[in-house]
């Protein structure tokens, strides 16, 4: 009888076991996954065949494919000469019993190929830049448009593997609930070099500090966007500063081995979780005070296109048409055209950058639809799309000259972003900047003689002017200066600030001094000068990036 009972219990267990397996895979029986398992649903479709190679280094195996030899070497340098030591030295103690195993790093040239790979294991709508698979000691990363971004993403992802890898036995045997999201992601963000953290994350953090809506630890641990990443980083940074960086390793170990509970934190820091959160929250208020005294622009004005999320890269024509990118369809990004109230989608493929011809008849856009980043011309009259192949490979930004005869193209040919001027036949006419650092955000002066661009100097993004023969450093203050843009009358504007607060400012072309033109509390993410000191600005507010009209 007892045996019969056990038999039924086992059958019940087996049933739930099947159910558990069936739920994520939707089948207990058909375990091969060709992508056609479902009637409907989008499928992963690799845009081209990839010939994979592997580069073996002392601590890593770097997988890459055709055209990424330079990128793999830059990755090797970042990983071996910078990131590994930065992280491993603090967590060496975790490897006394568990030997270090080489981490496998899989590089993809573009978001399109990353999303369509089985290696990433992610959905097509996923917007991450990389993913770390702790249990199998592997990370999958998109080759970033700039060297700075590549450093950041690689360091972030290997931090996950180095910090959590030693505990995978605990995770597999379910002996522990693991580390909460805020610790796992906080560590990964903390060990990134400061200048490589995505600026928009701190913008999101400042926004909730000012609105007094800082998330609780449970919410942060969901890690569902820029804000949670920033909160996780900020709290980890607070702990490292107050209790010492060496405590991070101890905290991780204690949380995994002893449990994520007040007792653990009381032993480590003499503070409960709630008290720790409260201490950090109080400090945040003092860090993110700048701009708090200003009125809120989003309460005085309404966004132009409220239904469209993640709006970015706004451009206009003389006729009043507004072009912008948005992830409205769930894709990063689609290009939209607004004429009055009417908004229509112009592209059926991913667009990451674009610019309009001066006559407003066509635009040039950047897409990784075919795997590699490529430029395409779009006729606004006929809708026809034709490839545009400049001599420079791997373009990441483009700006059409005011005279319409040249393009400034930012391209990543050797692992960092450099700036070129190319003719409409695609031939390189001049090189504006090609240092080992990144040069980005080209903006043509109205007379077409100079290109303003951004490059980092002593930890701050600064605006430079270049014409292919000489380069001149323009801004010098100890603040970031980004996204330069010229007005038709020859005034140069940029976004300047730090700690998540960036304001519209005019740059004095003689001495590089900036004068603020934005006295509101919201951070300006982008701006486009219009006639009569008017601007279109992309503002960050409550998790949304939206276009507003602004006039001083």
């Amino acid at each position: 009888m007892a045996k019969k009972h056990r038999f039924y219990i086992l059958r019940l267990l087996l049933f739930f076991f099947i159910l558990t397996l069936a739920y994520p895979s939707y089948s207990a029986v058909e375990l091969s996954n060709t992508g056609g398992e479902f009637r409907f649903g989008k499928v992963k479709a690799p845009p081209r065949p990839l010939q994979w190679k592997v580069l073996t280094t002392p601590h890593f195996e770097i997988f890459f494919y055709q055209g990424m030899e330079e990128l793999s070497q830059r990755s090797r340098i970042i990983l071996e000469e910078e990131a590994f030591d930065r992280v491993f030295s603090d967590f060496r103690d975790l490897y006394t019993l568990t030997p270090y195993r080489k981490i496998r790093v899989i590089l993809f040239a573009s978001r399109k190929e990353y999303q369509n790979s089985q290696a990433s294991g992610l959905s097509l709508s996923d917007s991450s830049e990389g993913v770390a698979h702790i249990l199998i000691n592997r990370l999958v990363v998109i080759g970033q448009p700039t060297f700075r971004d590549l450093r950041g993403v690689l360091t972030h992802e290997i931090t996950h593997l180095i910090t959590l890898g030693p505990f995978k036995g605990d995770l597999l045997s379910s002996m522990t609930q693991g580390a909460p999201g805020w610790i796992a992601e906080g560590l990964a963000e903390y060990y990134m070099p400061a200048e490589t953290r995505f600026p928009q994350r701190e913008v999101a953090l400042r926004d909730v500090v000012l609105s007094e809506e800082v998330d609780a630890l449970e919410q942060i641990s969901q890690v569902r966007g820029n804000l949670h990443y920033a909160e996780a980083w900020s709290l980890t940074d607070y702990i490292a500063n107050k209790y010492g960086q060496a405590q991070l390793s101890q905290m991780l170990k204690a949380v995994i081995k002893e449990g994520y509970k007040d007792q653990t934190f009381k032993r480590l820091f003499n503070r409960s979780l709630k008290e720790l959160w409260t201490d950090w929250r109080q400090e945040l208020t003092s860090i993110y005070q700048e701009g708090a005294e200003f009125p809120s622009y989003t309460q005085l004005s309404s966004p132009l296109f409220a239904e469209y999320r993640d709006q970015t890269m706004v451009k206009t024509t003389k006729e009043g048409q507004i072009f912008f990118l948005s992830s409205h369809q769930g894709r990063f990004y689609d290009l939209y055209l607004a004429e009055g109230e009417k908004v229509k989608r112009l592209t059926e493929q991913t667009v990451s950058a674009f610019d309009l011809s001066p006559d407003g008849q066509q635009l040039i856009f950047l897409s990784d639809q075919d795997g590699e980043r490529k430029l395409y011309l779009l006729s606004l009259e006929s809708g026809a799309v034709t490839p545009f192949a400049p001599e420079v490979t791997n373009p990441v930004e483009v700006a059409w000259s005011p005279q319409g005869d040249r393009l400034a193209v930012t391209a990543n040919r050797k692992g960092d972003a450099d700036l070129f001027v190319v003719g409409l036949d695609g031939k390189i006419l001049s090189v504006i900047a090609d240092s080992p650092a990144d040069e980005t955000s080209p903006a043509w002066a109205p007379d077409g003689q100079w290109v303003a661009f951004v490059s980092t100097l002593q930890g701050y993004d600064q605006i430079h002017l270049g014409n292919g023969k000489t380069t001149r450093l323009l801004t010098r203050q100890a603040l970031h200066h980004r996204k330069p843009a010229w007005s038709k009358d020859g005034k140069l504007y940029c976004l300047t600030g730090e700690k998540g607060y960036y304001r519209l400012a005019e740059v004095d072309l003689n001495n590089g001094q900036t004068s603020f033109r934005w006295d509101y509390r919201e951070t300006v993410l982008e701006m486009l000068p219009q006639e009569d000191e008017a601007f279109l600005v992309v503002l960050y507010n409550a998790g949304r990036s939206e276009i507003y009209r602004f006039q001083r």
Partner: protein
Amino acid sequence: MLTTTIRRLCCLLLLLLFTPTALQAQVDPIYQEYRSQLEMEYFLPFIAYDGSFYVATYGKMSSILRDQELQFVLLASGEEVVNFALGYTWHAPYWSYGLNLYQMPIYTGPMWSAGFWELQKGVSLLASRHFNNEKRLDLRLQFEDFSPLSLPRFPVEKASILGFEATATHDNFSFLAQDGHREYFSLGGAFPLLGADFKYLKAEVDHRNYFSLGRSSLVLSARGGKIWGDYPVQRGFALGGIQQVSMSSLGTLTNAGILGTLADTVLRGYSEYRFFGDGFLLSNIELRLLAWPSSYQKIRGTAFTLLAFSDAAWVWKGSSQQTSSPSIGVGVGFKFYFFGLNLGLDYGIPLNTPGEFPKWHFSIGEVF
């Protein structure tokens, strides 16, 4: 002189010895070609012993790039009951291929209602051509032996089937924009080879259009199917209630869209499995209002939708019509969207079929 000559020879020898090494160091291949091979990724065993072994295991092997995957399940109690499933996938450029071997008790039908229990043994070969993210072609060849298990509410035959299917699918629906359309056309059949028992041809078509009206959206759907020949009764078309083949049954993928199976159908206001047949036409109109939050673009994990619908279906068995002309259901309902999972509850009123009364219908997942 001799010394000088010896010195020169030594130098030459040293040069000969070291030069190749130096050159070799420079020309050594820095990169190696990647050769895909399977490695163990997970192995989750559950084993009990009381004179006999009871085993429930799941394992997965994959290559580093996951261009190859091998998954297996073993469910056994003693020597009498040994069930298993094994699936191998190979992702080549543009094409993916799959092979499955299985012997497994399978339930087909909604989890909260009665359906079919059967023991399935078989092998399937799959190939998928992915033209782009929105268009694909799926090919399938499958041999399956099935027999009834326990006391099914609906009869299951004991037989075997050898079938094929080709399905072309297009799906550009965007959940965020509530815009786009989904459609497939499928042609399949079975042949009495290798001892298989059935011979038939099956065609299915499904088209769904989604129109965004700001906070509201309108969904229009038209589906149809026809089987010609001799087919297993539990693989025919069934309408009534919400038949979510791809969501609610464990056995779906052995027969999801294959070998003449149950298509996803929605005929609210009627009992589950109310109509069986070898041909059907179905149309649905559903008007949805996003009650919370104010826009699909603002969904951050949870959402609540109200809806009103009208479903109409015709089902035939041979030349005999099983439904009214047509059987119509109307009603209202709501959907709760919870981090990617749709939970639905609809109240349907049958309009023109005697003996049917209003009913509640629960659903999990995207019904349409």
